[in-house]
């Protein structure tokens, strides 16, 4: 039996990896992937707590999250492609039109 805290630590490590990825990487596709990592870190938490508390609703929630995440990736990638067609770059530092 793996204690709950192990899952918590794993989840925290994955979340921080994703978070740092969002902050420091420049490629917008990597950014999107990093966001997925953070999302899945929360999924780990959900499942762990579901098992620990003997309540399936946490696992049900994960399915919803996955579905939404899939849709989100589809939209996100579509936006990135549209952006790339317009700007010919995937570097977020060059995508800075929305300012002052």
């Amino acid at each position, binding site marked *: 039996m793996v204690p709950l805290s192990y899952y918590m630590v794993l989840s925290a490590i994955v979340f921080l990896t994703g*978070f740092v990825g*969002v*902050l*420091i990487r420049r490629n917008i596709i990597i*950014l999107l992937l990093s966001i997925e990592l953070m999302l899945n870190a929360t999924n780990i938490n959900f499942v762990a707590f579901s098992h620990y508390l003997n309540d399936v609703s946490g696992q049900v929630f994960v399915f919803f999250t996955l579905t939404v995440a899939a849709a989100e990736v589809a939209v996100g990638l579509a936006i990135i492609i549209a952006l790339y067609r317009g700007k010919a770059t995937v570097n*977020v*530092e060059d*995508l*800075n*039109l*929305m*300012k*002052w």
Partner: protein
Amino acid sequence: MKYVLIPLLPFAAFLIIGLCGHWIRERAHWIAVTAVFGSLLLSVSAFIDVAQGEPITMTLYSWISSGTFKVDIGFYIDRLTVAMLLLVTIVSGLVHIYTIGYMHGESGYPRFFAYIALFTFSMLMLVMADNFLQLYVFWEAVGLCSYLLIGHWYDRKSANDAATKAFVVNRVGDFGFGLGVMLIFAIFGTLQYQEVFAGAASQAALTLNVGGHWQVGVLTMICLLLFAGAVGKSAQFPLHVWLPDAMEGPTPISALIHAATMVTAGVFMVARLAPLYNLSPAAMDVVAVTGGFTAIFAATIAITQNDIKRVVAYSTVSQLGYMMMACGLGVYTAGMYHLLTHGAFKALLFLGCGSVIIALHHEQDIRRMGGLKDKLPITYWTFVIGSIALAGIPLTSGFFSKDEILIGAWTAGTLGKTLAVVGLMTAFLTAFYSARLVFVAFWGPSRVDPKHAQHIHEPSPTMTVPLMILAALAIITGYVGIPEFLASVLPGPSGPAETHHGSPEAMAIMVIASLAGIGGIAAAYMIYVGSPGLSKRLAAQWPSAYGLSLNKWYMDELYDAWIVKPTTEAADILWRGVDVAVIDAAVNGVARVVTFWSGMLRLLQSGQVQHYALAMALGAVAILGVYVLF
């Protein structure tokens, strides 16, 4: 109720032409002329009704009703009013017809007719008013029309300046007029003429404390304040300066507004309010002295001016002074008589000037005229009739009305005798400059610019017919018994006006006045026809007197130095010192602070997604930190 149409017809013409002028264009005169002649016919009908019976009073509607302050729009039509109605509609009608020829092909043709119709409406409402507020409103309205029409050629700077000057100078007088109306309401609690006249005698003893030292009779105060308005409107000294400049406007305007009707509104007002003025001898003396001084003052200027319209303009100022003097001396009938005859012959003179100006392609300097008598026979003969009427040569209308004033003045006490002498001197000068105008402009060798000299011809019948009608009127108005017609409604301070024509004194004055007129013409003949060059020698002999007259006694320069310059300088100080340094600085300072800080704050919005993500994360950490720690 048909009298309502007298002012409303021109007003309807104004609305139609004003709103549809773009489509009406050169047909505008049909509407305006029809309307004015409709008014003329109705005025004749009003004249017949009033001459046979009682004054007509009517209230159209209640204009203002607020507590005890009630003002109606109403008409009071008595003999004085119908005389003015006839003058206004006849001169206005003739000027309308004349304008068709004069303004033909000029820019703003429908606009001109719209304004001239509006003026006719305002002037008719002014003379028909039955209360002070209506008088005041239309007093201002005629001033507005005057402003608009002086500035008809608004692309000329001189016309704009003249219009502004007329408006601003009139403001000075109208300020007093407005105060006078307020004081009337404060004292009498009503603005109706008849109620004020009825209550005036009981307020005669009431005094006001002015400046803490002087007790001034309240009626005197009212009369003087109202007279301030008349000084502005009727171009009396010291507010006469706008009228000569107003000659920048088209000549028909000079004839209608600045000779026959609007400028006489001041005289009309004093005559209308005779029951008030009669109760205040002090105010009457002020009116008389102002008028007498203006009469001779303007005459001395007129004798040396070289612009044909300015000579006639100064003569108008002088004649207005004459009328004012008569009113101030209590011989209102004589003043009104002269007003009516003057309306005819002065309109004639101005329209004659216009005819000359058109024939010479807008040349106004009499030194570049001469020899026009054979080329413009109709204009010449009508001009001569106007001039001898102005000069007061026997058997013309001007002779009778001027005589009436002088005899009336002579019988009105010591002040009257003094002013009668002033009037006689003025009569001499008047004859002199009128004759000078005829001799220099129409006689002698032609000094016209050679390139126009061949083309000089009489203008179209629309211009010459009004001249001939006015020339006839300039004679006839002397014989139709105007003073007898008006005597009953214009009692002097000592009861109904009496006539002294039979007395030896009156005969003597008549003879002296005639001699003054003939003498003036003879002097002008000697100087300008008998020995050409004498005028230059005289000017060289008395350069200071000549310069004083030529430069209008330096009145414009005086005003410029004492009033205009200090005002503009004070405005300049306020502009730079207060407006720019304080108000603008405060407003701009607030804006600058906001700009600075927003400039700082906007740097936060970098456009870099990761900056926002970091800020969000730090915020989340901070919130969590607070939550965990506390």
